[in-house]
């Protein structure tokens, strides 16, 4: 049977640390095989050769944070059949979404002597705030396993098998002793989406939520439980406000406890 043409892959970067696209280059054992199955048509971190669109699949890294980026993500959407956002920045706005809780002009003044040279939007937002997204890969950073699963599923025309239950389930499956119960360490495992293999509890630290909220989480229950065990409100607010601070469930929890603690007003 004649083989169909290879699907065209593009990798795009917005406001980010480059770590999620690096995950593709970190597939040391699979990279050359993958390049045999997919045409890497646009991937500036790896190649100066550029093949024009349209693209069969686009991997989008980074959050949308400037007016030019809004135009660019719309253009990419028009050129792409299957658009996947990769990582916490592209799916939730990233760590840089902490600006969304403050006045960005104040931030500019703090970092730059001549803030008028810098163009930026008020908010750092996920790609889904501007265009329809076909699939999200979570994580700060994404994992190699889920990335290869996504690409393999795409090549074979099936749905990727990516879990949407909590880190707690992975943790129990691995037989790890619960860090909250045994050590009293605050842990976002009960409300965070699986995918890391319960990495932090395996290293005896609490989950800090880098895969973002799981499907139907209950952050209020967790938050109240932590408060009842002596956690200070500002600490709880910071726990929800890291790499997925602007993901809806974490955003609402952060705002609720911030209001209670009067954090946003005093800062």
């Amino acid at each position, binding site marked *: 049977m004649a083989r169909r043409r290879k699907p065209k892959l593009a990798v795009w970067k917005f406001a980010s640390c480059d*770590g999620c696209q690096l995950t593709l280059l970190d597939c040391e*054992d699979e*990279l050359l095989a993958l390049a045999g199955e997919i045409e890497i048509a646009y991937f500036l971190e790896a*190649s100066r050769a550029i093949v024009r669109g349209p693209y069969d699949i686009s991997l989008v890294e980074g959050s949308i944070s400037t007016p030019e980026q809004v135009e660019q993500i719309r253009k990419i959407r028009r050129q792409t059949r299957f658009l996947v956002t990769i990582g916490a920045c592209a799916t939730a706005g990233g760590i840089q979404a902490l600006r969304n809780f403050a006045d960005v002009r104040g*931030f*500019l003044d703090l970092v730059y002597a*001549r803030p008028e040279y810098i163009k930026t939007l008020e908010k750092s937002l996920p790609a889904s705030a501007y265009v329809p997204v076909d699939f999200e890969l979570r994580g700060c950073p994404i994992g190699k396993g889920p990335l290869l699963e996504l690409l393999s599923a795409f090549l074979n025309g099936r749905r990727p098998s990516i879990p949407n239950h909590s880190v707690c389930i992975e943790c129990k499956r691995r037989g790890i002793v619960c860090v909250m119960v045994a050590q009293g360490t605050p842990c976002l495992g009960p409300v965070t989406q699986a995918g*890391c293999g319960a990495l932090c509890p395996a290293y005896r*630290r609490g989950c*800090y939520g880098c895969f973002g909220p799981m499907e139907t989480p209950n952050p209020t229950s967790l938050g109240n439980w932590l408060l009842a065990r002596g956690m200070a409100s500002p600490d709880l607010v910071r726990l929800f406000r890291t790499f997925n601070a602007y993901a809806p469930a974490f955003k609402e929890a952060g705002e609720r406890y911030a209001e209670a603690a009067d954090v946003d007003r005093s800062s």
Partner: protein
Amino acid sequence: MQRPRTLTVRVDALARVEGEGALHVRVRNGQVHELRLEIYEPPRFFEAFLRGRRFDEAPDITARICGICPVAYQMSACNAIESLFGLSVKGPIRDLRLLLYYGEWIESHALHMFLLHLPDFLGYESALHMARDHPEWVQKGLQIKKAGNALMARIGGREIHPINVRIGGFYSVPSRRDLLEHKEELARARDFIVEALRWMAGLEFPDFEEDYEFVALYHPEEYAILEGQIRSSKGLLVPVSGFEEVFEEFQVPYSNALHSIVRGRGSYMVGPLARFNLNFPQLTPVAREVALSIGLTPPVRNPFRSLLVRGVEILHACEEALRLIEGYEPPDRPWEPVEVRPGTGYGASEAPRGILYHRYRIRADGLIEEAKIVPPTSQNQRRMEDDLRKLVPRLLSLPKDQITWRCEQAIRNYDPCISCATHFLRLEIETE
């Protein structure tokens, strides 16, 4: 060949660098009139939102500035905060930090040498194009990279944004057996890099030398990576707390990254070449011997030869990692406890691309009041422009696409990480 009086070259994207930027060059009558390395990657305001965060969050938050060298951020942050709190980490915890950092040097340098820089010397668009003709070298490069990543994942939990680093040490530490499992892979990486260096030494390097001011950390007992004093080839020797007195940062209208110069003098270079030239005697004997045998005698002033110097540093890192693993016994406890002391802490370490400086002002309640971070690419930015200013006039007899490619290669000599500096590159050459 006659030099063209007017010429316009414009390339929208410079590839094989980390992050987003552009180069704009204007040549008139064979003279460079205007040259701007434009970093348009949007700012992410790390220094602003670190304010009000607690000291122990700094290693995890600042790691997110760069997915290529997160350990450098974690180590500089720990240095700065621990020095303020009066803690100096020693013994096996320090050895584990070195091992984690060597893992990052091996991974980052192998990525740059084999996947980002080497294709320029052989005329390929990418390592994937190169792999069709030279599969063995791409494979070996990937295997070296993998050895570094595996070591990082073992100690740090994962290679990108490790989760196991904390102020005072680690959340949990590996057993001796855990680390011994890495010996074979690291020894193979060491042998591969020696083989690769002997082959790469025969490549053609553009004839280009400059009288650089090299700046690197200096440590009396080791090839500095984790800590040290700031030393330069033109006589500077100051503690890290003196960084802002000797270097000046300033903003230029065309770049989202700040420029850095030595006060009163001008541009300087940080990174592999600077470390090699300043700290050569502290490399392992085998690394020195291999360097000399392939014609690398300090001072190396040809930035294109940084390809080889990165390889020598990989060799050094593999050897040192093997030595540390051999002598490793787990510490009694994974971290040293700290007590908050208010004040200002200064820290620096040698990221794969050069000195990474952090300063934090911390209050009695442990919250960060002010943070300052100066990454290596920001420091090298002015130096990259100076290199191009010298290089471009010599290239004008070449076809336009060759001029462009050679400029890109000269920028890649620095392994620029623009995500760090503001955090890509669009290349634009305009000649009238």
